[in-house]
């Protein structure tokens, strides 16, 4: 379980996060949405321990985040960042194997190899195994990176997957594939926390949504409760229409103009 308690963060004098609290249980996917500059990325950095939390506390599985060693943390949570450039030549399989680095010293164990093969199969990239990563399309690259971060926590119970706008720059098919993979991870018991831009995607794939505005929580709860015109007005400064649509558990959000 992830437990975030009264977390605030400031850069210089500017308050970026203001008293944010929420919980994520095993098997749940949380989507964090909000306008640019709402504090989403800062929150994710605190959650990954890329930045140290000074005010408030974060607990993973009832243990304070600061108490984990670098290696323990790497075996508990993995992170898919936004910009993934690989400076040198690696094949897809080598890259996915890097997800297992927290588990072996020099040579990967048989289990590591097995995990890599399973994950490549489940993420549908087995056919790319021998390709040079830099020759792949954007969508394929993102799927390979996702495979790498899944491999990092694959056989760990109660592990956490953090995703930072994983659908950015991808076409419609890849967007769905990536989020479906994230959803599948949650369904098999992992915790998934993802920053998303598309409210409709968030409502469709996530169990909980956290809406941020200027570092403050606008709303936190299941999609049906928090996705409404008022919350979106507040968070994004836009007018929206909600449209019920067959086959969607949550009404679709259509932007309809700028709020003056």
């Amino acid at each position: 379980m992830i437990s975030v308690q009264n977390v605030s963060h400031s850069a210089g004098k500017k308050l970026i996060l203001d008293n944010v609290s929420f919980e994520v249980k095993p098997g749940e996917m949380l989507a964090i949405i909000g306008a640019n500059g709402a504090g989403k990325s800062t929150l994710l950095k605190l959650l990954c321990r890329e930045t140290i939390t000074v005010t408030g506390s974060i607990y993973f599985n009832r243990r304070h985040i600061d108490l984990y060693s670098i290696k323990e943390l790497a075996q508990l949570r993995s992170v898919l960042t936004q910009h993934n450039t690989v400076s040198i030549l690696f094949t897809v399989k080598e890259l996915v194997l890097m997800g297992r680095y927290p588990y072996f010293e020099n040579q990967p164990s048989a289990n590591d190899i097995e995990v890599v093969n399973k994950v490549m199969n489940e993420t549908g990239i087995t056919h790319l195994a021998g390709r040079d990563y830099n020759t792949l399309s954007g969508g394929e690259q993102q799927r390979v990176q996702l495979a790498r971060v899944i491999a990092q926590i694959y056989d760990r119970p109660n592990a956490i997957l953090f995703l930072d706008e994983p659908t950015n720059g991808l076409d419609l098919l890849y967007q769905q594939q990536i989020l479906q993979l994230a959803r599948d991870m949650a369904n098999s018991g992992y915790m998934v926390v993802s920053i998303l831009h598309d409210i409709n995607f968030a409502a469709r794939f996530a169990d909980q949504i956290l809406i941020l505005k200027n570092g403050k929580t606008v709303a936190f709860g299941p999609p049906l409760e928090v996705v409404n015109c008022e919350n979106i007005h507040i968070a994004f400064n836009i007018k929206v229409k909600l449209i019920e649509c067959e086959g969607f558990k949550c009404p679709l959000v259509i932007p309809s103009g700028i709020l003056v």
Partner: protein
Amino acid sequence: MFKNHKLILTVLTLFLIAVVIASVCIGAVHISLAQFWSILTYYTGLGKEMLFNSQQTAVLFSLRLPRVFLGVIIGAALAISGASLQGLFRNPLAEPGLIGISSGATLFAALMIVFGGRLLNTIGSIYGYYALALAAFLGAFITTLTVYRLAIHQGKTVITALLLTGIAINALAFAFTGLLTYLSTDEQLRNITFWSLGSLGGASWLSFSSVLPFILVPLFGLPLMAKALNGISLGEVQAGHMGINVNRTKRTVIILATMAVGASVAVAGVISFIGLVIPHILRMAFGSDHRLVLPGSAILGATALTLADLISRTIVAPAELPIGIVTALGGSPVFIYMIISQLKKQNL
């Protein structure tokens, strides 16, 4: 892509051994393979036949062997430090010579020669070499830190800043080394000139054994950083997420790589391009996994420098070509090719 690391390293090692034997046998005093074998077996007590004369053994033991062995460890040191610095800077153009590390080491070595005065009265003795190696290491270390500070912005290497810093530091070190020549005595001047040209001509068992420890430590230490360097190639942040202690990796790689460069400069001066070309060849042939590139560079670097030295002392015999000319002739076309391919990649 071909991935059997052990097999690749074994083949490279066999190649190195062949080049070493060739280099030991070829020269002004020729030693045939049969004679070499006879010397080897005679002195290890395995054979009784003496197919050789005393001049050949004298040349072999006091000239050829120390020179070839020195070439082997310096080639290995230059290539492995190049490969690991390229991993750290996340760019294949980061080479100790190009980015100013070698000339930083030269400057400090020159300072040591001119101002170390008393200390270096003992030069020629093992402590003189130690002092020189230490000064060169310090120079290399300070330069690397400076270059790293200037070239890395927000975790990314700015390649233009990296290369321009290299040019600036090379110019500065060159100027200071030039100034020092006016303050130096004749003997000091000869020593300094030798450092700025690069040569294995001063090889002796003494110089070999005095730098050996400074090179063995990085030679065995750097391959242990291979996994962490692979991680860093995805980005420092990403490496941190993967459980790699990025700061510790940086410190270790910089200290070990500059130790190797410093030691090489102390006994052989500045030899360029080995650290650039050798890792590049390995990456082109077998991919970028540092678990192969680091040990592979050491072995292939040793082979290349031994070969370059063999060429430098035989091609214009009885005169001798500075080894830097040979490595530059082979290396600079590859360097130009690498720049062009990097430009192409950025345009695509």
